[in-house]
């Protein structure tokens, strides 16, 4: 079978290590877990090299393996720490609404057109920090849905929740994350600007 020339597994670590690590960090937010899963990915790839068809690039193949490892990790986490009743019933941000359900102080104006946020390194750091502040189930649901773009049926299977519960989880995650970004990014950057 024809394979590309650059297939020496000993070179993989230098060639793809940082890329895979960043991929894992964006989704896991934990250094040691990310390092472990990257290591497992290389080992699995090494043992399973025969199945690499060369149809996709090596990096795409490796990312595919890593992605499965990350999803397995999420599955394990949700088994070990399933969602509590309280997580589902309490409102995520009660102080933002009054007794009749109106905003007490509504979302702030985030200014201009911040569409280029994804290019800003500091914003990425802040997003990661805010996500780390959520409970693992919330952060993992958000990651699968908004970063990975997975469909809800798939996420329900990974996190072992019903679709109705997943909506609640995502609502909580989005609301808390929005509030955290507003407090730590948008308000600070608007003060810097003025």
């Amino acid at each position, binding site marked *: 079978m024809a394979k590309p020339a650059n297939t020496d597994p000993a070179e993989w670590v230098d060639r793809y290590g940082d890329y895979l690590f960043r991929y894992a960090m964006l989704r896991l937010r934990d250094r040691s877990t990310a390092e472990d899963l990257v290591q497992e990915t290389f080992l699995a790839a090494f043992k399973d090299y025969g199945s690499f068809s060369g149809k996709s690039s090596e990096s795409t193949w490796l990312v595919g393996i890593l992605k499965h490892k990350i999803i397995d990790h999420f599955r394990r986490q949700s088994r070990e720490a399933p969602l509590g009743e309280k997580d589902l019933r309490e409102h995520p941000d009660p102080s933002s609404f009054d007794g009749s359900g109106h*905003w007490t102080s509504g*979302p702030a104006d985030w200014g201009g057109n911040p569409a280029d946020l994804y290019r800003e390194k500091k914003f990425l750091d802040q997003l990661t920090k805010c996500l780390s502040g959520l409970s693992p189930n919330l952060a993992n649901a958000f990651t699968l849905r908004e970063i990975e773009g997975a469909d809800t049926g798939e996420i329900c299977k990974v996190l072992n929740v019903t679709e109705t519960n997943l909506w609640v989880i995502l*609502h909580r995650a*989005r609301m808390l994350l929005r509030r955290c970004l507003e407090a730590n990014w948008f308000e600070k950057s608007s003060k810097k600007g003025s």
Partner: protein
Amino acid sequence: MLSCKDVTQLISESMDASLPIGKRIGVRLHLLICKFCLRYERQLLLIRETARRLAAIEEPPILSAGELLSAEAKERIRESLANP
């Protein structure tokens, strides 16, 4: 009448599934008159857009040491590949 609290929940839900027609109309009418909920929706969509773009770019713009695999981890992985 839907409250802002209800509408924020439905906005999130509408990002994952299509709402039944009655709720969909209720949310749209509410957004016509409520600038905070409209803002809330736009911000959630901006966060989604940003997250997906982050996932789609191959090479993040700026790298710091914290985003690289540490030298120790690289060494460990090389060793484990040499003795699988």
